[in-house]
């Protein structure tokens, strides 16, 4: 049974009624096709109304849905081949970050992604998609190799945030993330980052320094989790909905703020309703930008990425009267 949110219940109820009516009509051999057609039309418009106008907090719920496709779900739909490569060569292999070499529409690319698990057992293995320093160091190792061999880099962002425990502190979580930021900013190869679920703060950004940043319609990308923000602002984690409004972290907000280049649409109700359709959209968007980026020289790619970062920020500058 799929996880169902409160705001989806009117749709589910209507759909159930339609199913009942269809069954009734079949059992009793009564023609109810007109009534069913009316209800189906109503269901379609209700879906448009509800899913087409999702509030930020509802998008957070969809982005965190237990059935939300993770990186491994996309792999067979995006790539003709994928060879996973493991370990940071320093400490361990982190299961919350996956990476390797893939074939994307015939082009070898380096892929790095944060991965949440499906179900409790896998989530424990993957630390709920919260990478430790060794995860970021694995990502860095693989991306450095892409730079060495001139391969484009595709990153996929889906994490509640970087691991926040004693072990992460002891092994230098801050330094591990900072090294990724520095390195990504300096690469001469195309870098495309796609937010496919949760974009949780610095832990997400560590894979987010792309020439192009794409975002799925129902993903979010924020400096802080809405619950933590509510706890700081109002000392009340139940006000996460209000915090979600305040933080302006939806794909549409980020497009407006110049951080995201394109919003990739999802099927009504979220990516989990139709993975294939979602993956086709992601693939088409990546392909479009990859073609564009590959026509640039390495120097231009690097400088354009720098100028893109350079332009992020809003402030006021008072001109001095001389």
């Amino acid at each position, binding site marked *: 049974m799929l996880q169902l949110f409160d705001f989806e219940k009117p749709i589910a109820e209507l759909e159930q009624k339609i199913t009942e009516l269809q069954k009734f009509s079949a059992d009793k051999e009564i023609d109810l096709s007109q009534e069913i057609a009316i209800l189906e039309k109503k269901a379609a418009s209700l879906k448009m109304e509800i899913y087409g106008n999702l509030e930020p907090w509802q998008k957070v719920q969809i982005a965190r849905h237990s059935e939300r496709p993770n990186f491994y779900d996309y792999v067979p739909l995006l790539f003709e081949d994928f060879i996973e490569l493991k370990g940071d060569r320093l400490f*361990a292999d982190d299961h919350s970050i996956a990476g390797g070499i893939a074939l994307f529409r015939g082009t070898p690319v380096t892929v790095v992604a944060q991965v949440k698990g499906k179900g409790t057992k896998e989530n424990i293995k993957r630390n709920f998609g919260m990478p430790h320093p060794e995860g970021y160091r694995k990502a860095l190792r693989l991306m450095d190799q892409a730079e060495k061999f001139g391969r484009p880099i595709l990153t996929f962002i889906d994490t509640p945030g*970087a691991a*926040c*425990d*004693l*072990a*992460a*502190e*002891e*092994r*230098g*979580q*801050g*330094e591990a*993330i*900072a*090294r990724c*930021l*520095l*390195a*990504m*900013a*300096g690469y001469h190869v195309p870098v495309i980052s796609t937010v496919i679920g949760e974009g949780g*703060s*610095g832990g997400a*950004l*560590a894979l*987010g*320094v792309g020439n192009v940043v794409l975002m799925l319609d129902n993903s979010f*990308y*924020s*400096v*802080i989790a809405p619950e*933590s*923000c509510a*706890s*700081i*602002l109002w000392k009340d984690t139940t006000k996460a909905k209000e915090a979600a409004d*305040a*933080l*302006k*972290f939806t794909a549409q*907000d*980020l497009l407006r*703020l110049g*951080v995201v280049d394109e919003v990739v649409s999802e099927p009504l109700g979220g990516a989990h309703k139709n993975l294939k359709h979602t993956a086709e959209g992601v693939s088409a968007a990546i392909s479009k930008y990859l073609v564009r980026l590959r026509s640039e020289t390495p120097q231009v790619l690097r400088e354009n*990425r*720098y100028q893109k*970062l*350079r332009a*992020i*920020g*809003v*402030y*006021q*500058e*008072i*001109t*001095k009267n001389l």
Partner: protein
Amino acid sequence: MFKDIFKKTKYVTIQPAQVPRHSPSETSPPQTTLSKKELPDSLWAKCPKCGEVLFNKDLEKNARVCTKCEYHFRISARGRLTLLVDEDSFEEWDAELLTIDPLEFPGYEGKLREAHEKSGTTEGVLTGLAKIEGISVVLAFNEANFMMGSMGSVVGEKIVRAIERAIDLSLPVVIFSTSGGARMQEGILSLYQMAKTSAALGKLADKHLLYISVLTDPTFGGVTASYASLGDILIAEPNALIGFTGPRVIMQTMRQELPTGAQTAEFNQEHGLIDLIVQRAQMRSVLARLLRYHQEGAQYAATV
């Protein structure tokens, strides 16, 4: 399982003597047994490490370091500047950059006003050019009294402009970080200042120019995870708390209580994360020596 044999799961933490977990901010001394009436903020301060009650005047004279146990209190950006650079050598940059409220975030304007009144400055970082023992250097100091030195658009922009000017002038950079991290109230714009400052430091490194990062109490979150950790040389002040996630958040989310002394400068050094711990009184001379020994760098860059 075999892999468990090789996987280190327990860690020994070497605890420095009696280092307090929470250090006080400059303007709000820690809770003491004495009532506020008996211990007015403006006159006295109590050392959170040894408990000595100090005249604020004496504390200021001693660079806000406890005269008895050498505990390092927090100090303002201007205070630090005065201790560090040659007299009258400082030229401030970009003071005209002002913060706006791009997300119309609840309560942000009020917070900015408060911070302005409390600190007497316009933002969470002071940048400029100065000399240390005659050597020109580009400097940045986070201001703890301005929203705990948190990084929003202006802090990121000022740091990047300072680094870019250092590149133009072929000068080294020293940044003193004191920060709670990325500033929540500017959302994603704050987050990307981490990438922006790191990118600028990459350009500085391309030119073989030295960057020294000095981590002071406290340095956390998005600042630890960007410019503060990217120094060629990482220096910390004694007893400074440095980390990625703050102890309270670790407690709340992981239900994990950190051992005493975790996240101090000494803990970070023990775990291989910083190069050296330098007393405030020695900072100027240590920086001068390091700057002097790197003066060949810019010329070298032209030959390789």
